[in-house]
């Protein structure tokens, strides 16, 4: 059972949240120029690491807001939580 620190509400039980999967997937800047393989990569291919993963969560049964979490997929340890639009930790986000 996870205890997730919502950036707005503080630590709450996992049952209040829904997970939205991999974070920082960028919309293709020029969709018309994309081939089938690039569309497949954008729509379906996912990072599925055994270790640190950046993902989106929504405090669905709380404030209702989305935010980013960096979590280890083996230990479930949450390394950091940061708001939507903030750069990932250790990167300038450009």
């Amino acid at each position, binding site marked *: *059972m996870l205890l997730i620190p919502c950036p707005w509400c503080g630590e709450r039980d996992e049952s209040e949240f829904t997970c939205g999967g991999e974070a920082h997937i960028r919309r293709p800047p020029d969709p018309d120029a994309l081939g089938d393989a690039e569309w*497949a990569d954008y729509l379906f291919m996912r990072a*599925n*690491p*055994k270790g640190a993963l950046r993902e989106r969560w929504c405090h669905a049964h709380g404030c209702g807001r989305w935010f980013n979490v960096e979590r280890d997929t083996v230990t479930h340890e949450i390394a950091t939580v940061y708001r939507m639009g903030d750069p990932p930790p250790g990167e300038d986000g450009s």
Partner: protein
Amino acid sequence: MTPARYSIFSLARNALGYHRNWPRAWRSPEPRPSYDVAIVGGGGHGLATAYYLAREHGIHNVAVLEKGWLGGGNTGRNTTIIRSNYLWDESAHLYEKSLKLYEGLSRELNFNIMLSQRGVLNLAHNRHDLKELSRRVRAIRLNGIDSEILDPEGVKAEVPILNTSPSPRYPILGASLQRRGGIARHDAVAWGFARAADARGVDIVQNCEVTGIDVAGGRVTGLETTRGRIAAKKIGLVAAGHSSVLAAMAGLRLPIESHTLQAMVSEPIKPVLHSVVMSNAVHVYVSQSDKGELVIGAGMDGYNSYSQRGSFRIVEAQIGALVELFPIFSRLRMLRQWGGIVDVCPDASPIVGKTPVEGLYINCGWGTGGFKATPGSGWAFAHTIAQDRPHALNAPFALERFASGRLIDEHGAAAVAH
């Protein structure tokens, strides 16, 4: 290398010797430096692939590499349910092939897999469920697969202990029933395939973790493992929850997310539940094992995980649903609870086929329902590896479907919403 046949006579003979002289069911060989085919993953699907490579295609120089122990992953962690009541033609044909192979498997492998075709019920709890189930049943019957609709009285006749009164929050309005569906002993499926593959010359190498895939000029040449380098002309990846990790070693990205799916068993009780009962709406599926334990499955955890530990939130929902359907179970105690790592595709259908790397084949994405497909998956995958092209049964399940858009949406086929 034919092993001693199991029979009533060998049982009697070994009973006289106090069961001290049974031969080993399979060897535990040191890996050789090279093989024609190396299968990564010694679960049911990998072992079945090796068996059918030897039996159907005459390829005996095969290794199955398993990082832990044989059948110790999802093969030994599922709820053992077998059925072929899938909506779309592609799935129906593949799962029905598997069910047909299961029906002859004990005899073929000379190993009792304890297949019990006791019937699988999928419950409907509202008018929409009923319409959806009757659509499914008709589609399934058009594919020549047995399936029928039961009204609440029919459900009550099949499973008298179900609460079919109008009082539950989600009352039971009917069910679909596949009478040929049922359960089998999951360990026995792995052991039976292992013994039969070993008898045909396949090396089953346990405690051998693959740490790298060697690719030269767009073609696989071998594997780096914790027991040294093993050269192989062809490599099949059959690693379920760890498929993404393995594929990354060959530079491939997969449309797979790994999640925990958990199950539990109760203390053993006298026979009370004859069928397998599944409910999509309230998220639980249950059968009673020959030992008398209830085997109870649930939905999967909603986030990526490799931990093999499920969340208590799921346990709570699963038991709540069970007790609403079967008030008689309310005072049962649970014996064990565990999790497995399932590999889930966006369309809830598997990937069985070739990869962009020559000589590298992949069989994954079975998600929450791979056990029922074990023999059919191995059969089709062995064909794909041996012939270097998919069989008609698994051609629709190629990795390329995510680029072509020909997805096979089977989200509704699972017993629970995922």
